[in-house]
Each structure stands twice: as structure tokens, then as C-alpha cells.
């Protein structure tokens, strides 16, 4: 309309420059406020903890650097077991949860037994505390046949898989239900059967919708594999316990805890990143 545009050399107007200046000033002010409040809070919190009467004793038994350094290799070795359990449990959960979700989505009276089974399963294992499932599987299954020795880590993997499959199945089912029915109708109209429609059209779209939720479940599972220590598997937590009992010191637990945090950190950040990206895509650049 104006000549500025017609020439192809558009520059922002006075009005826009004024607005940008205002926004820049406002954002500079918020950064400053954030900085000051963060520093104040950290100093106050640090002063409260370090200044408390028994800080030296607590530091000795929880944050002993010497013991931390000594126990580190042992606990790291234990963590390797956690990682292996995590790896196999993840694969098993993916398979079992998908089966459960598909079973629950089956329609028609013929499938009632499978549907009921899947529903009962998810109801049961979402309600049971992980620790109790670990005890039941870890001590119950070996009791069935005392001639066969199953490694405790394997039993732990089974227990974790049982629990997490129920959660993940529900997430997947929610995703499948979030795919618009018109997609299913379009697929069926082409002559695709129920199974192919599910596999080719519904599940790929469902997965996309629930990626952040699935990643969140994975982060949760990453730390819960530490619970297999209650069965006597020598993982990171159990290794820390062993060192702790010989040194009468709690530092090894802190070391193990930090390891789990470090393990989950990349996944947590990745989850945030993926969620933010998906939100952005759905907002199509809006600011609300």
C-alpha cells in the first residue's frame, strides 16, 4: 500500500520500533528480577542449611567426599545392572503394552474374554504397589519350582514389566482413542481390515500423540529399576547399601541417587523439548 512496501525494501515503522524498544526494556527488567531473586533465595537456603547447628555431622555422614570417591566404582558397576534391566524391561513393556492396548480396543462379543482380561490386568497392576509386585514375583515364582534357579535380576525385570505395561497400555489406548474416527472410516472404506487399519493408520498416529506421556513413563521406569535391589540383585542401590553398612555412612546412597538423576536427566530434557515442540506446532505460532 505504502511506497515502503512497493519498493520491496520494507522497514519497520516508528510505531513498531517504539514497541520493540518497550518489549526489550520489559524483558531486561524481568531478567534482572529473576537474577536477583535467584541469588537471594540460594544464599538464604544455603545459609539456613550450612548454618544449622548439626551441619558438620550431617555433612560427614551424607556428603563425605572420601567415601563418595571410594564407593563410586562399585556403585557404577551396580548401575550397569540397572541399565541392562531397563533395556530389556523397555522392550518387554513396549510389546506387552501394545498387546494390551489392542486387546482393549477390540470390538464385538467374540473378543469379550480378551477385552475383559486386558481390562482386569490394567486395573490390577495400576493399583498394586511396585514393591509388592517385586516381592510376589521375586519370591513367589522361584517357590513354584525350587530346582530351577532364575537370576533375581530377571525376576526383577519381569516384575517391572508387569507394572509398567499396565500404565503404558493405558497411555497407548488413550492415544488410539484420540485418533479421529474419520481416519478409521477412511481406512476401512479403502477395504483395509480391522487389524491393518490399526497397524497402518491408527497406531502410528496414536504414538505421535502420546510421545511425551510415554517418555515420562520411561523416565519413571528409569528410577524404579532401582527397586530390584529389594530382591538382592546387586544393582546400584544394593551396592550403595553394602558400602553404607561397612562404613556406617550414608554417602553411598547420595552417590547412587545422583547417578540415577544423571541417568534420567537427558531423557527429562528431551521430553521437555519434544513436548514444547509439539505444543508449538499445534499453536501455529500463537502467543497464548
Amino acid at each position, binding site marked *: 500500500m505504502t511506497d515502503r512496501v512497493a519498493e520491496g525494501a520494507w522497514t519497520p515503522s516508528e510505531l513498531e520500533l517504539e514497541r520493540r524498544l518497550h518489549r526489550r526494556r520489559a524483558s531486561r527488567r524481568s531478567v534482572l528480577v529473576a537474577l536477583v531473586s535467584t541469588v537471594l533465595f540460594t544464599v538464604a537456603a544455603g545459609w539456613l542449611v550450612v548454618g544449622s547447628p548439626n551441619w558438620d555431622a550431617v555433612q560427614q555422614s551424607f556428603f563425605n567426599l572420601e567415601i563418595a570417591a571410594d564407593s563410586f566404582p562399585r556403585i557404577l558397576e551396580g548401575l550397569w545392572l540397572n541399565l541392562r534391566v531397563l533395556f530389556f524391561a523397555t522392550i518387554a513393556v513396549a510389546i506387552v503394552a501394545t498387546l494390551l492396548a489392542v486387546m482393549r480396543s477390540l470390538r464385538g462379543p467374540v473378543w469379550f474374554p480378551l477385552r475383559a482380561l486386558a481390562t482386569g490386568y490394567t486395573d490390577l497392576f495400576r493399583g498394586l504397589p511396585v514393591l509388592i509386585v517385586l516381592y510376589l514375583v521375586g519370591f513367589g515364582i522361584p517357590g513354584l519350582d525350587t530346582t530351577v534357579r532364575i537370576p533375581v535380576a530377571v525376576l526383577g525385570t519381569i516384575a517391572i514389566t508387569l507394572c509398567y505395561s499396565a500404565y503404558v497400555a493405558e497411555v497407548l489406548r488413550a492415544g488410539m482413542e484420540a485418533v479421529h474416527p474419520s481416519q478409521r472410516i477412511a481406512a*476401512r*472404506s*479403502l*477395504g*483395509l481390515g480391522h487389524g491393518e487399519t490399526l497397524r*497402518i*493408520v491408527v497406531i502410528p498416529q496414536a504414538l*505421535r500423540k502420546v510421545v511425551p506421556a510415554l517418555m515420562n513413563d520411561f523416565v519413571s521406569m528409569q528410577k524404579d529399576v532401582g527397586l530390584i535391589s529389594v530382591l538382592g540383585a546387586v544393582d546400584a542401590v544394593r551396592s550403595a547399601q553394602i558400602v553404607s553398612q561397612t562404613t556406617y555412612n550414608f554417602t553411598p546412597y547420595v552417590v547412587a541417587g545422583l547417578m540415577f538423576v544423571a541417568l534420567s536427566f537427558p531423557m527429562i530434557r528431551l521430553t521437555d523439548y519434544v513436548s514444547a515442540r509439539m505444543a508449538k506446532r499445534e499453536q501455529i505460532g500463537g502467543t497464548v
Partner: protein
Amino acid sequence: MSASSGASSAASPVLELRDVHKLFGDNHVLRGVDLTVAGHEVVVVIGASGSGKSTLMRTINLIERVDDGRILLSGDDITDPGVDVDKVRARIGVVFQHFNLFPHMRVIDNVTLAARRVHGVDADVARDRGIGLLEKFGLGEKIRDYPDRLSGGQQQRVAIVRAIMTDPELLLLDEITSALDPMLVGEVLDLVRDLKAQGSTILMATHEMSFARSVADRIVFMHGGRPLESGTPEQIFENPQRPETQEFLARIMHR
């Protein structure tokens, strides 16, 4: 691209509905529909929203089960309980108001899916044919794109290509331009004209009266769940017999 008439009886029409009823609870939506579509015929169904046009389309495609009456596809009773619905649907091409392309698949994969998965066509053969059809209808540059990169008109053209990929005996077009802005309607309707020129058998529901008039062999006016009046475009538009038809046309022409 001619409709391959069923081997069962070459003389029978491609589609024949006999006294078809459909109820949703107490809502009697289709109240005894009789309708035939002969080979290479383009039949356009018009009527107000709620007159049963969409439900009619959905019953033919077996998305809704009829509550009475029979539907014959090239002489085969497709409302028989023992019929394999997937096989029937594979013989009918459907295009929807909202395109319903698969957003996670590229255009070419959308188009070739049924050929590969349902009709057992070799992937390369299907691909060549898909590319050929897309190029023919001006979509050659969009082959590798995902649907959300396309305009509404382009998406609907892709959806039509997807429906005709496997040479269906019958094409069902359910208000395929109703979700498009007026600028894009023309490109989609031109494609339908091409299909008619090639001899496709088409049953189409639409609100585009001028298009219905120029492309239809026969117009069917639906009212209250049954075809109230049918005839050539001239008969229906120039000289409608029923007062309901007259009223509907007066209203829709005045918009």
C-alpha cells in the same frame, strides 16, 4: 477407467437400492430409499442438510448397517449378513467432505495404500500408477509431500486419486467441496468432470447446484429420508413437480 461390471450379471445396474431403511434410535433417517445407478452414469443427490444424503452414502459403503431393504452392487447383495465387508468396500471408491487423508503418510503412500495392501498390487506398479494419476491431475509436484503441506483443494484432489486408484466399480462423493473455500471448489469439480468423461460411475451428494446441473445425468432430490423426485437436470431445475423441490431450489438458489 471404466467400471468393471460384476461378472454376476452384466445387465444389472452398478448400484441398486431397494426400500432401504436406516434408524438411529427413534430417528428414522432413511425411510424406504429406492435408487439405481447404471454403469457410466453420474447421479447427483441434492437435498437439505438432514435429508439423509450422508447416511445414504454411508449405508452403501457399509459404514452403517441398513435396518431394512437391500443394496445390490453390480447384482451382488452387499447387505447379506454373510458378505465380506472389506471385499465390498474395496470395490467402491469413497471421497469424504473432510478429505480424511492419512496425515502421517506422504501423498504417494496415501494414494497407493489400498492397491498395495488390499488389492495385492506390486509396490512398484502401484507407485508408477499413483505417480501417473497424480501428474495427470496436476499434483506431480506434491508426490513426496505430507498432506498438511497441501491446500484444501489439493488435498481433496489427492483424496479423489486415492479413491480411483484401484478402478472402483462405483465412486461415492459425499459433499466433497463443502469444506473448501470458493476459490478451490473449481479445481476439484473439474477433476470430477474428467472422471465423468472417462466413464466413471458416480453417486454424488452436493450443494453445488450449478455443477450438479452441468455434470449430472440424473438428479435425485432427497427429502425426509427418501428420494422425492428425480429426473434430468432440466426436469428438476426448470420444472420441478413437487412443492418441496420447488421450495428447496428457491431457497438454495437465493443464497
